């Protein structure tokens, strides 16, 4: 059957005119790169699972999107990342939460699915599992972009309470 791929880079309150034309172009370019990576796998007869992993890794490496590099900051000023994969063939699944130093969290989620008897691992244990599986690690600075730090500083300035459903970021 013909292959199909869809991606997203997050939903939110962005409205026409909110971004500069340059920022919009950069977002479109980021989405294009992810589509190209996933489409290449599928056009080559590859699996849906390999395709979605490839597409998500491109977006994780792109600081414009809230995943991997460019993830938003926690209250304590850290980057804690979550990811999941699921294979519709067998309904096997893998998920990881609270990851702090794995360059591509989606690969850690896939390792949980393929190299552990579990479905969901989190925080310190998830970090240890990722290292033990030999996945590429990155320093905290890799994930922490200036723009996300600025947003975090802005968040801290607002004393309206610790949780604001109107949060503009992430």
């Amino acid at each position, binding site marked *: *059957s*013909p*292959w*199909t*791929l*869809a*991606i*997203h*880079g*997050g*939903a*939110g*309150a*962005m*409205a026409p005119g909110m*971004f500069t034309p340059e920022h919009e172009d950069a977002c*479109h370019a*980021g*989405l294009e790169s*992810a589509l190209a990576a*996933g*489409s290449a796998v*599928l056009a080559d*007869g590859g*699996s*849906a699972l390999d*395709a*979605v992993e490839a*597409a*998500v890794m491109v*977006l*994780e490496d792109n600081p414009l999107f*809230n*995943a*991997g590099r460019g*993830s*938003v900051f*926690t209250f304590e000023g850290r980057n*804690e*990342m*979550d*990811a*999941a994969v*699921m*294979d*519709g*063939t067998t309904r096997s*699944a893998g998920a990881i939460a*609270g990851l702090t130093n794995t360059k591509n*969290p*989606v690969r850690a*989620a896939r390792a949980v699915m393929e190299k552990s008897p579990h*479905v*969901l691992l*989190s925080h310190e244990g998830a970090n240890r599992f990722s290292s033990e599986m030999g996945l590429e690690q990155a320093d905290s600075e890799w994930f922490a972009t200036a723009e996300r730090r600025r*947003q975090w500083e802005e968040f801290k300035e607002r004393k309206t309470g*610790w949780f604001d459903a109107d*949060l503009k*970021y*992430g």
Partner: protein
Amino acid sequence: TVGAVAVDASGHVAAATSTGGLTGKRWGRIGDSPVIGAGTYADDRACAVSATGTGEVFIRNAAAHEIAARMRLLGETAQQAVDAVMAEVGAMGGDGGVIFAAHDGSAGFAFNTPGMFRGRADASGLHETAIY
């Protein structure tokens, strides 16, 4: 949050979601992305789904699994199912969106916010990205 869903040439579906979460999140807060059946789900008998938005509402709704179940049990198309679940998410005060790739080769999205970074491509040459 970022995500991808696909149907391959063998008709198998898969989903992947990855996120940094919410700015200022505390206490190890986790949203829907890594909760299988909430923000991420895939079932060859129906579709693959990746969600983004108010994670707490997508979890309470078990949104991604609900979309696949509606297709299996009610015979809805993927678009009908995602529209119905997103309406329910909205009614519960949640906002955001979902993308899907279905076993019939269709792919699409539904969202109740002004924008969602999204893209689609397929074997026929469709290749599009959009924000609003």
